[in-house]
């Protein structure tokens, strides 16, 4: 596999990651969100493996497998069980309507393209052009956390944001050291369990998972 072909495959995967990030923004069903998130993990994992192959860095294979195991199977499964157990309504509720969110997403993509332009000039890596996509994925994850009402969808937005960060790490610097990556992966897994406990706590206290309820600080006002 030549360098240019690898760069092409990587940019196609970057485009697919961006597409799934937009898909997360426009999806209305909560199980659909989980599927899209899992697909994003698949593309991320393949992209990491491709970068590892071209750069000759073998620890990237380990992080690719880790991504596949955690973000494609473990996390969606944990969230699926949580949604099932909490008996959450299957529709996503949004603060801003979906077409407006999409337009904001487009604006964010342009913004992150502008922001990464100087970095792209300096970088000599094959994967430098995907940096803008990585930043855009982070921004879109943030946008999803802001515009959704329910805690579960906000968590998915947070995990998508983490996907973006991971992609930025592989595209800008050919990945972090393995120790850091293992630590981050473990953190994410622990976070998912803690989220689960929190969901149950929020629901028993407020009878709902809507975060608007938590704005009240006192019992009566």
């Amino acid at each position, binding site marked *: 596999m030549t360098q240019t072909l690898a760069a092409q495959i990587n940019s196609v995967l970057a*485009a697919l990651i961006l597409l799934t990030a937009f898909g997360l923004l426009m999806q209305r069903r909560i199980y659909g969100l989980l599927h899209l998130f899992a697909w994003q993990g698949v593309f991320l994992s393949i992209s990491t493996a491709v970068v590892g192959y071209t750069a000759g860095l073998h620890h990237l294979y380990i992080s690719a497998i880790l991504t596949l195991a955690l973000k494609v199977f473990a996390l969606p499964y944990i969230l699926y069980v949580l949604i099932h157990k909490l008996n959450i309504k299957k529709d996503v509720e949004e603060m801003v309507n979906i077409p407006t969110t999409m337009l904001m997403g487009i604006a964010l993509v342009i913004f992150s393209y502008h922001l990464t332009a100087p970095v792209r000039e300096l970088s000599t890596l094959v994967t430098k052009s995907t940096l803008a996509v990585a930043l855009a994925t982070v921004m879109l994850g943030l946008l999803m956390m802001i515009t959704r009402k329910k805690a579960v969808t906000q968590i998915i937005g947070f995990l998508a944001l983490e996907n973006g960060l991971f992609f930025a790490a592989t595209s800008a610097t050919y990945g972090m050291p393995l120790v850091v990556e293992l630590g981050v992966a473990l953190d994410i897994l622990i976070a998912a369990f803690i989220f689960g406990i929190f969901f149950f706590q929020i629901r028993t206290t407020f009878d709902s998972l809507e975060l608007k309820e938590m704005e009240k600080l006192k019992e009566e006002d």
Partner: protein
Amino acid sequence: MIYSISIECLQIAFVLGAAPLFVGWVRMLKCWAHGRASAGLLQPYRDIYKLFYKDVTIARNASWIFRAAPYITFGACVLAGGIIPVISTDLPLSLSADVIALVAVFAIARFFTALAGMDAGTAFGGMGSSREMMVASLAEPAMLMSVFTISLVAGSTTLSQMVHVSLSSPLVLRPSLAFALLAFALVAIAETGRIPVDNPATHLELTMIHEAMVLEYSGRHLALIEWAGEMKLFLFASLGVALFFPWGMAGVYNPLMLPVAFVSLAAKLAAIGAAIVLVETRLAKMRIFHVPEFLGIAFILATLGMLSFFMLE
């Protein structure tokens, strides 16, 4: 020059002749997919033939627009058949009209159909026209964005030049073209009035869009409108082929390539017909108020295609 003019005439005749066959193929596959017996590949020809021999009935208060609209629509589709490179890139008309003009030609056809729908003064016609214009106002920007993405890659808005560039450049994986293809497919479904957006086989008053506009037509007028509709489907399919999969098309001064061009076009159109049937059998028609969201997705995809051309290539 003589050669290219004769190719131009050959192509227009081919589009006129083959469009009903393509629709017949789609209908036949659809019948098979539903487990029904089909009326055969040639049924659209028989329908058009029958309609040409029927009498025309025109509403008493209909104006000249009502009578002229079928000819304008049909003429616009024939002109579009001369612009789009279907079998060869050696087209004099294609050099004089670029892809923006092509979108405008389709817009003229639609504009007059919508006017004619309102002209007879029936409630259905007006409703169909208003729905059609709603779909059109959202589909056209998405269509232009998707086509502009390919223009960026090819560095030209002339269709034959775009085809020529993608034929002569080596095969490269381009995410921008994949996005543009997806957007184009969604827009083509809306523009040609196929299922999720409009059902070409229904006359149920609540759901029809295009059929509601042409409900008042009969006889040779209806034959021309039906034929124009079939050509529009054929032309959108071959525009997709020309923009995204042009391999096998005959180049400039290359008459030996023409048989190959016909065979490859037939194979590609057969595959597109199967894809249309697959989509239409699996999906139900969506509510009319979901159409803006559907076309919004097409617009977003086209914009992403354009952005990823700058970002990733």
